[in-house]
């Protein structure tokens, strides 16, 4: 062991084990610093900010309205909760990054249920009490379409 020259414990000597440990430490610390930084830099409306340790730190309000416009011209209000196997997590989907995937699934599921038409959506979010932002631009535009 290499004593540290002052009162203190011995130090693991240089060698393959210390090299491997250094690599592990560097990789771990890099991930733990860079990924949260990425979450800090991205707007909350764009991304969920997972891996950033943002625990109960913000208020994210969602106002979403989905309408299925059927071929016969009728409009039917859709409840997004009906399309999630955990309805309490549906607001986690309402970010710019994740919403397109939900819209694709929404139309696929509607088609599986035999329901066809255009899905029009108005989705707006407010982060920490700031003015509402539209995630579907322009509002009430078609986000997906199912055909028989």
């Amino acid at each position, binding site marked *: *062991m*290499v004593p*540290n*020259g002052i009162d*203190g*414990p*011995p*130090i*693991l000597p240089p060698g393959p*084990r*210390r090299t491997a*440990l*250094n690599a*592990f*430490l560097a990789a*771990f*610390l890099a991930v*733990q*610093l860079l990924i*949260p930084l990425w979450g*800090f830099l991205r707007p909350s409306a764009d991304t*969920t900010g*997972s*891996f*950033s*340790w*943002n*625990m*109960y*730190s*913000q*208020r994210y309000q969602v106002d979403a309205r989905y309408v299925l416009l059927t071929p016969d011209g009728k409009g039917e209000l859709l409840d997004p909760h009906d*399309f*999630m*196997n*955990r309805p309490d*997590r549906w607001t*986690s*989907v309402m970010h710019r990054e*994740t919403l397109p*995937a*939900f819209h694709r*699934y929404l139309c696929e*599921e509607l088609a599986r249920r035999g329901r066809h038409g255009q899905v029009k959506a108005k989705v707006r979010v407010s982060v*920490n*009490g*700031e003015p509402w932002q539209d995630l579907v631009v322009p509002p009430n535009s078609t986000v997906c379409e199912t055909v028989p």
Partner: protein
Amino acid sequence: MSRPSAWDRFWFPMIPPAALGLFRFVFGACLVAEIETTRQRSTFAIVGGFHLPYVSWIGPVSEQAYAWIHRVEYPLAACVMVGLLVRPAAAALLVLQARIFFADQLTFRNHPYFFLLVLLVLVPSPAGEAFALGAFVRRFREKKPWATCLLGDEPRVAAFQRLLCVEVSLVYLLAALNKIHDHYLTGAVLQHVLGDALHEKAFGRFVAHVVGAQRLDAFIASAAPWTVLAAFTVVVELFLAFALWPRATRRIAILAGLALHLGIGVTMDIHTFTAAMLGSYVLFLDPETIPRWTRRILRN
């Protein structure tokens, strides 16, 4: 001989593994307790329904695999807790929990993420060398003294214990930095989150029973207590990020952390993360503290 660098003196001293072993025991208990919660809340990982994959090659699991994974995790977490085959058990848990965690972005929760990171550090670490059944039996058979059986017979590299300390400090620091904005500091976020929790959770119902539902509602509706509480959480989290390290501030940091986490645990029914974070405080103690206390208890 040249003096080792600050990096080497921080990460590579050889220290007793006792604190790490004690933390391993507490963390193993938290793992056992968290399995059912994760089973209920990670159902996005199951085939069917909406999925938001991280990468296309990690797909959802079948219902049978989902149930099997959570059943198998119990004996593995118990092995980590008691210190039997710690490395393979921790490695297997890491793989199984990561399989569920990364099956879908919507299964993300901070607690399982923290547990994954801890498991990642525990796998290569000497956490199974102290307060561990396997090591105890092995040393007992070698007729070593009781203290050695419990505490280990040689010092181990501090890197893994220090890395867990750094991770805990980072969690506190980043949690605090995320909260430094007007909307949080006015108390509005806490009013919304804890207001709901006080209406729904057992502690809130107890308080309503004692002081009356109207008084509780009036408290929730008023702004001042939430502003104070918001400032308290930010100050305490920032304090904890740094003050657990120096001996001079460690005691008060532990008390502040106890107040913070017990408050969270009681009001929001968040128990396993509370226990894991509080359990991690032993990692910040001076390396000889746990061995000294243990020998004192054994002598008495």
